[in-house]
């Protein structure tokens, strides 16, 4: 099971979600993708996308205003 980490600190919409979509397309079922972001809108975008696609996700508060979103491809 592969793990991919994306450093999206300082990036604004739509870059983080587009990058995540690009990477998840090349991943296998069971692989995880973590996105580190300091843009709250990105967290909301990713949650909605995961709901639409049926992916499991977990959100971790890394610091004040920094989130780590981990997505598992099904």
């Amino acid at each position, binding site marked *: 099971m592969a793990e991919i980490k994306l450093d999206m600190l300082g990036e604004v919409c739509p870059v983080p*979600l587009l990058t995540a979509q690009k990477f998840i397309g090349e991943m296998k079922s069971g692989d995880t993708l973590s996105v580190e972001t300091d843009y709250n*809108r990105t967290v909301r975008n990713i949650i*909605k996308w995961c709901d639409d696609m049926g992916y499991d996700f977990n959100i971790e508060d890394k610091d*004040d205003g920094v989130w780590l979103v981990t997505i598992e491809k099904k």
Partner: protein
Amino acid sequence: MKKNRQKRLSLGVIGFITAFGLAAFVADKRLLVIWGIGIALGFVLYRSGICFASAFRDVFLFRDFSMTRMVIILTGVSFVGIGIIQAIAASRGLPVTGRIYPVGFHTAVGGVLFGFGMVLAGGCASGTLQRIGEGFILFLTVLLGIAAGSVLGVYHFSWWVNSFFSTDAVFIPDFIGWIPGLVLTPVLLGGLYLVTVAIEKRKR
């Protein structure tokens, strides 16, 4: 940012806003109302996370219409508010208030320029202000861009209006009457809303 520093900064901002409100009250009592509306709007903008850039961009990038529907609802709400104000003004024979401007080639050019700028910068005018309030220093640069662009726009605006096709100011009730105008707007907005729902359903 450390919590203590954040607390100090927020106290500073609250102090500045209060001082600004007091100064406005001293200058003109009515300014206090506008000050209050401004704070309320800023709060709603921040909590709702409304983003015009997303409303227009995500339709093409992600086939996501959720923010588009939010802007349609927002337009509907402001239609009710401004409609009441305009109808009262018109019924009393007063000039109708609102941003009623000429349409022309410059409208299309301005729309394309603003659209590209908004998507590349990651925020429209209100979204940029809201994100500066949230603490994204990056958007101070975008605000500078908006200010520079607006100044440039004002500087050569008359050239665009005089060199290309442009109509007189368009106020729909003047053309089709008040009642049809009041019906047409919700019908168009409702139609657009249903179109976004239909497209999203077909996607799934």
